[in-house]
């Protein structure tokens, strides 16, 4: 029985979660929402987190109806992510650990997503598609590590979606990806976009610059043609959202299928913020059915960055005997999924 409190703040969400022996006791979160057309910057995001975090810790304890003395371990996100917001979580976690005399554990953000997904869905040994604003990875477990089979060779899928949403000035509330998903439902015409799969890797930057030109023909850097010669675009923003989703999700499903075939696996788990996109889930489900496989997906409470996943992964590490001295409780912007020794899995 491990009771863990987890703090997540690697990007624009700050969240605190409490888990006790695999049971969710609290999962509270606040999101830093920027105006349409603007992304979130490290300094401002850190400021947002600083102003929200202590109230979230209080709220989580209240929701869980626990006293600090009921906790066994304090967990925080060590990386990867933006350093200033990460540091907010780390400072509070360190202080709480010393105040309450509880051990402290730094958790890899990606591992948090994977373990949370396994806990909620009950998937045993799935191929994991981890898709978010900063990550795009196809992962399979083998020999005590989560190994990366495929990933983006440039920008993350969520970053591609977010940046496109900014170009067409969609609202960032609740998230740019959600608003693209809604607008895409009204899309009628499929517009051909570059489709870039290299082995088990994908690339999105070329697609982004291509669709950027389609969205803003006036801003074309390449002005070989005269403006008058340009035909009026016969597609809407909705068509662009629709086509973008169809193209990039097809790439993700393809590399996931490739990893399934290579690893002879028939389970897929989707985690990360982009993972709550219902069209992506639908496409993945169809692919799985074609190969008699099974899809495991989770909703936004657990898909989008949250403190609970850090608490859960930390609890797993704690029960496997992992310890971390305070001097090692720093944060790191780069922290690869396969760096972590998965000592809590027995298979």
């Amino acid at each position, binding site marked *: 029985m491990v009771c863990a409190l987890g703090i997540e703040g*690697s*990007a*624009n969400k700050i969240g605190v979660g409490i888990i006790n022996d695999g049971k969710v006791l609290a999962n509270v979160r606040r999101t830093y929402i920027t105006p349409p057309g603007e992304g979130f910057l490290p300094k401002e995001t850190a400021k947002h987190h600083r102003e929200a975090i202590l109230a979230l810790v209080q709220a989580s304890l209240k929701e869980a109806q626990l006293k600090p003395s009921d906790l066994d371990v304090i967990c925080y996100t060590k990386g*990867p*992510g*933006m350093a200033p917001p990460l540091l907010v979580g780390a400072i509070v976690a360190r202080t709480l650990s010393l105040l309450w005399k509880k051990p402290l554990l730094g958790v890899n*953000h*990606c591992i948090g997503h994977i373990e949370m997904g396994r806990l909620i869905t009950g998937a045993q040994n799935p191929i994991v598609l981890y898709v*978010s*604003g*900063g*990550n795009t990875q196809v992962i*399979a477990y*083998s*020999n005590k*590590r989560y*190994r*990366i*089979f*495929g*990933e983006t*060779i*440039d920008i*993350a899928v*969520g*970053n591609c979606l977010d940046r496109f949403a900014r170009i067409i000035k969609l609202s960032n509330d609740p998230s740019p990806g959600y608003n693209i998903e809604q607008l895409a439902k009204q899309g009628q015409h*499929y517009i*051909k976009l570059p*489709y870039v*799969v*290299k*082995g*088990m*890797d994908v690339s999105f930057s070329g697609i982004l610059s291509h669709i950027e030109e389609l969205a803003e023909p006036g801003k074309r850097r390449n002005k070989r043609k005269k403006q008058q010669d340009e035909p009026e675009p016969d597609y809407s923003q909705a068509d662009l959202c629709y086509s973008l989703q*169809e*193209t990039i999700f*097809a790439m993700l*499903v*393809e590399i996931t*299928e*490739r990893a*399934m*075939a*290579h*690893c002879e696996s028939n389970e897929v788990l989707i985690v*990360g*913020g982009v993972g709550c996109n219902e069209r992506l889930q*639908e*496409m*993945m489900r*169809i*692919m799985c059915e*074609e*190969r008699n496989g099974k899809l495991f997906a989770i909703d936004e409470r657990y898909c989008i*960055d949250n403190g609970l996943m850090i608490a859960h992964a930390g609890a797993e590490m704690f029960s496997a005997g992992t310890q971390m001295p305070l001097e090692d409780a720093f944060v790191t*912007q*780069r*922290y*690869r999924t396969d760096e972590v020794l998965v000592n809590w899995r027995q298979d």
Partner: protein
Amino acid sequence: MALEILKQGAEGRLYLGEFKGESCLIKERFVKKYRHPELDTQITRQRMKAEVKAAGRCLAAGILAPRILHSDLTGHKLYMEYFGSAQTAKQYIQETVAKSTDEQAKQSLEELCTSIGGIIGRMHANNIIHGDLTTSNILINPNSNSSSSYDVIFIDFGLSHYNQATEDKGVDLYVLERALLSTHSEQPYLFEHILAAYRKECGKDEDAVLAKFEEVRARGRKRTMIG
């Protein structure tokens, strides 16, 4: 004629069949319902054409690849040479490790890597980019006629293309390195032997390709990951 399904790979279904009296492998890229129909048609045609072209280019350059006997673009089927007694390099590596002592396994896998690396080098020297180098896409075919006891045959050229750019060659190597690390994590020495043999065969751009490969690798490591 009812066909026997051999396997459902990532690319499509594999059947055993016949073409003009010769037994062959039929690879059917069935319609993927998850994709937009237009995108699906485009990808399927593109991949089939790439596969036919690259196999032809390889054979012309003296690199072993399945001969394409017939391509049926409308039926999404390719009829190709079947290597019935071959196993994938992935199986071969796993069996070798399981069956022999560490020392023996290391020696025979190093030999295998030398020949894999040499072939990839020759492919790149001929500007053939495989596009999906994994140990599932390399066959080990027993052969008593040649000096070694097996032939190494590359398959699955659906993602291949013809390009002399060092970037593409670098990415090709990076894809392979990562596939090896994730599939054969217990044998971390495989890639260095492949790379050593590769360098001897990859032609005049050796240094430029290697520099590009390092750059692609660094991109992977240094990418900041947010969220």
